[in-house]
């Protein structure tokens, strides 16, 4: 009897929470909402001078990644690796490539990445480093990059 009532209370509470979260999400959506997941980087070789950060951003359709900054890097650029004439190339990404036309922007190995140059210290598996990204509409977003050997 007691147990049942506790359970129903919990369930009501979680429903209420869900609603609050949904409302919060909607509110955020109005001002250019963004959620960024899967923020990671590989551990770097001890003397490596640069590294790459990856993440998946869900933003308003048409929003655009304009900058990234991290205390782990002397400087950063937004890059894309791609095959051109059979050669693997890496270049600063252009406006179109950084635009989430369908509301999703995926940074992953072999494609878009935050190029972290002049690494301050090697990235060690299990560690975390800070990263701040800026979207045209969603604005600045603080992230934590987890260093994982994937």
């Amino acid at each position, binding site marked *: 009897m007691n147990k049942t009532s506790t359970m129903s209370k919990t369930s009501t509470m979680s429903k209420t929470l869900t609603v609050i979260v949904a409302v919060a999400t909607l509110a955020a959506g109005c001002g250019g909402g963004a959620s960024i997941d899967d923020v990671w980087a590989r551990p770097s*070789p001890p*003397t490596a001078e640069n590294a*790459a950060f990856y993440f998946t951003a869900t933003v308003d359709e048409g929003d655009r990644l304009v900058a990234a900054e991290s205390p782990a890097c002397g400087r950063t650029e937004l890059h894309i690796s791609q095959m051109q004439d059979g*050669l*693997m*190339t890496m270049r600063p990404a252009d406006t179109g490539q950084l635009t989430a036309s369908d509301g999703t922007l995926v940074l992953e190995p*072999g494609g878009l990445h935050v*190029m972290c140059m002049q690494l301050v210290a090697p990235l060690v598996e299990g560690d975390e480093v800070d990263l701040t990204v800026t979207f045209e509409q969603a604005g600045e977003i603080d992230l934590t990059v987890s260093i994982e050997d*994937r």
Partner: protein
Amino acid sequence: MKRLVIVLVAVVVVAAAGLAVTRSLRPHLYAGTVLQSPQPAPEFTLPAHTGAEVSPADHRGDIVLLYFGYTHCPDVCPLTLSSVAKALDQIGDDAERVHLMMITVDPERDTLEVLGDYMGHFDESFLGLSGDPDEIARIAALYGVFYRAGEGDESTGYVVDHTATLMAIDPTGALRVVYSPEIGADALAPDLKELLG
């Protein structure tokens, strides 16, 4: 009724046997591109970060995975090298018979010391090869590999566009399978097993 049971059992036995035979006869489907008329892999000798002069012929009877890359490449090269390292973990003791050699396409910055540090980060067995830029260019051409250094400056460094395929030389010394740089460990491991026979 009894006869029906015997017939059913017989059908099942025949079907199981047939399945086993087709399984063993079915050729292995490679995850990479298999070269239709495999040629002997072009020979070369280059200094490795271990201090030894190495050559693919040192490993006849084993597999040599040949890759052209450079250490200032933080995105694609680590993707391929870490897939190979994970594939080696998957195949257990057979990993001792797979030898990865990365020839640098950036001999100016990639000294043997830098290469040793970079390769060892992925797998202790990986070899980093460097040497005379003209000799590296000659070897790359033999393998149909091209590269060109782009612009850059002191602070940003420069990138090197390069053919990023991973090439497998089989135990007979023939260049057999070519992989895209994005081959994953799960796809590569069964191929390595098959190539080792």
